[in-house]
C-alpha cells in the first residue's frame, strides 16, 4: 500500500484519477481503517488529505461557512459561530460515535461513506449544505442531497474529491434541528433520523425543509412535509400533516434495529418533535 499526502485537493484528485489499482481517500479514517482491518478493502494507494492547507479549518464569510473536508466533529462542536447558526447540523455531527470518533470523523466522510443512516446527512440537507467537489480538471458544487445515490454509492467520479462542505449564512428567524431514534442512549446507528430547518415571518412558518435518514436507501427530502408546515404556527393540525407526510415518505428495511412499521411510525413522531425545536430556535412561540 502506497501512502500519499498531497498538498492540494487538485493534486489529490490527480493521484486518485491516475491510480490503476484500488485507491482510497483518507480523511478521518473512521470508516476506511475499519474496512482495512476487516479486509473489506485492499488499497494500493491511500491518499491522506489532512496535509492540505486549510482543509482542517472552518472558514466564515458573509455567505456562510466553509467546513474543510478534514474538520473533525470535535472541532465542529467547539465552533461557536457554527453552533449558533446551524445547531441542528452541529448536533447531528456530534451524535456520531464516541469522543474518540469525534476526534477524527468528518462531515464529508459521513457523506461519502453513503450510509442510509448517516446522522449528519439529513441535517446538512435540511440546512441547504453543498459539497465542493474537486476533480483532476474541474471543480463543481453539488447540493448534499444529490451526492448520495444509494447505500455506499455517491455521485463522485473516479478522481473526484470533496474538498469542503458549505453551509449558507442562515436567513433571519431560521432554526434547525436533528433528532434520531436509537435503542441506546448514545453511540448507535439511527433507526430513524429527522432533520428540519424552517424560517419564520411574523411568527408563521414561511419556508421549511424536511429530510429523513435511515428510512430509505438514501436520505430523503420530503417536500410534502415542508408544505405541511408552511403557513402554520405549528398548530396540531400542521404537525399531524407533517407526521403523515414523513411516514408516507418512508421506504425502510426491516432489521434488528427496527421493523418497517416501527420506522414508519417513528419518523412521524420524531418529525413533530424536531419541528418544535426548530420552530423555537427560529424564535417562534409554541
Amino acid at each position, binding site marked *: 500500500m502506497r*501512502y500519499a499526502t498531497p498538498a492540494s485537493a487538485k493534486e489529490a484528485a490527480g493521484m486518485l484519477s491516475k491510480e490503476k489499482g484500488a485507491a482510497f481517500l483518507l480523511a478521518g479514517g473512521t470508516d476506511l481503517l475499519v474496512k482495512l482491518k476487516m479486509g473489506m478493502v485492499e488499497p494500493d494507494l491511500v491518499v491522506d488529505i489532512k496535509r492540505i492547507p486549510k482543509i482542517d479549518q472552518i472558514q466564515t464569510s458573509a455567505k456562510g461557512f466553509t467546513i474543510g473536508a478534514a474538520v473533525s466533529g470535535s472541532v465542529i462542536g467547539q465552533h461557536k459561530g457554527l453552533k449558533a447558526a446551524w445547531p441542528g447540523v452541529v448536533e447531528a455531527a456530534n451524535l456520531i460515535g464516541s469522543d474518540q*470518533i469525534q476526534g*477524527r470523523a468528518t462531515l464529508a466522510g459521513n457523506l461519502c461513506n453513503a450510509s442510509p443512516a448517516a446522522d449528519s446527512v439529513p441535517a446538512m440537507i435540511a440546512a441547504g449544505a453543498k459539497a465542493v467537489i474537486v476533480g483532476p480538471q474541474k471543480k463543481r458544487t453539488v447540493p448534499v442531497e444529490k451526492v448520495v445515490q444509494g447505500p455506499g454509492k455517491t455521485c463522485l467520479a473516479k478522481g473526484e474529491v470533496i474538498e469542503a462542505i458549505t453551509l449558507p449564512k442562515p436567513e433571519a428567524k431560521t432554526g434547525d434541528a436533528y433528532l434520531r431514534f436509537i435503542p441506546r442512549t448514545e453511540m448507535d446507528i439511527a433507526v430513524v433520523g429527522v432533520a428540519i430547518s424552517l424560517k419564520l415571518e411574523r411568527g408563521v412558518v414561511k419556508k421549511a425543509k424536511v429530510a429523513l435518514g435511515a428510512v430509505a436507501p438514501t436520505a430523503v427530502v420530503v417536500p410534502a412535509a415542508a408544505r405541511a408546515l408552511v403557513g402554520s404556527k405549528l398548530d396540531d393540525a400542521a404537525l399531524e400533516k407533517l407526521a403523515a407526510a414523513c411516514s408516507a415518505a418512508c421506504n425502510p428495511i426491516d432489521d434488528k434495529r427496527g421493523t418497517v412499521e416501527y420506522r414508519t411510525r417513528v419518523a412521524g413522531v420524531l418529525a413533530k418533535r424536531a419541528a418544535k425545536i426548530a420552530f423555537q430556535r427560529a424564535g417562534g412561540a409554541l
Partner: protein
Amino acid sequence: MSNATLVSTTVNGDPVQFACPTDESLMTALRNRVGLTGVKEGCGTGDCGACTVTVDGSLVCSCLVLGVEAEGREVTTVEGLSQDGELHVLQQKFIDHAALQCGICTPGFLVAAKTLLDRNPNPNETEIRYALAGNLCRCTGYDKIVRAVQDAAKDMRKASKKRR
C-alpha cells in the same frame, strides 16, 4: 518489511522515529515499534477505546489512525501521564477507588478522562459518563471509574486554586 516508511514524531514529549509499513495502525506501531504497551488492543475497530491516545491534543482511537499519519504530530499515551515518576492524580485515584480489575481498559480510560478534565475541570456525573462512553469496561460496572474521575477532578481543582 515491505513498504516501510520512516516516521518522525513526538511521543509523550520525546522525539521518536520508527519505521512501519504504511498499512500499520498507530496502535501497533506504538506498541511494537516504540514499546509503549500501555496502548491496548481491544476491538481494533474503534468501538472499545482501549487504544485511546491523543494526537495533537485530539482524543482518538489509535487503531483507527495509521502509524504514518503520526509524522510531525504530537502523540500522548498513558505513559505520558505520570511526571517525574509520580503518578498522575487520575492514576492514583483509579487505584484508590479500585476503578480497575483486569486493567486492559484502564489506559484508555485514563487518557480519555484526562482529556475531559483538561477541557472541563468540573464535570458532573452525566458529563463524565458521556465523555467516557467510548471506553468499554467489562469488569467494574463503571461506577468506580466515575467516582475516581470525580475525586481526581476535585483534587485537581484544589491544586490549581493553590497554584493561583
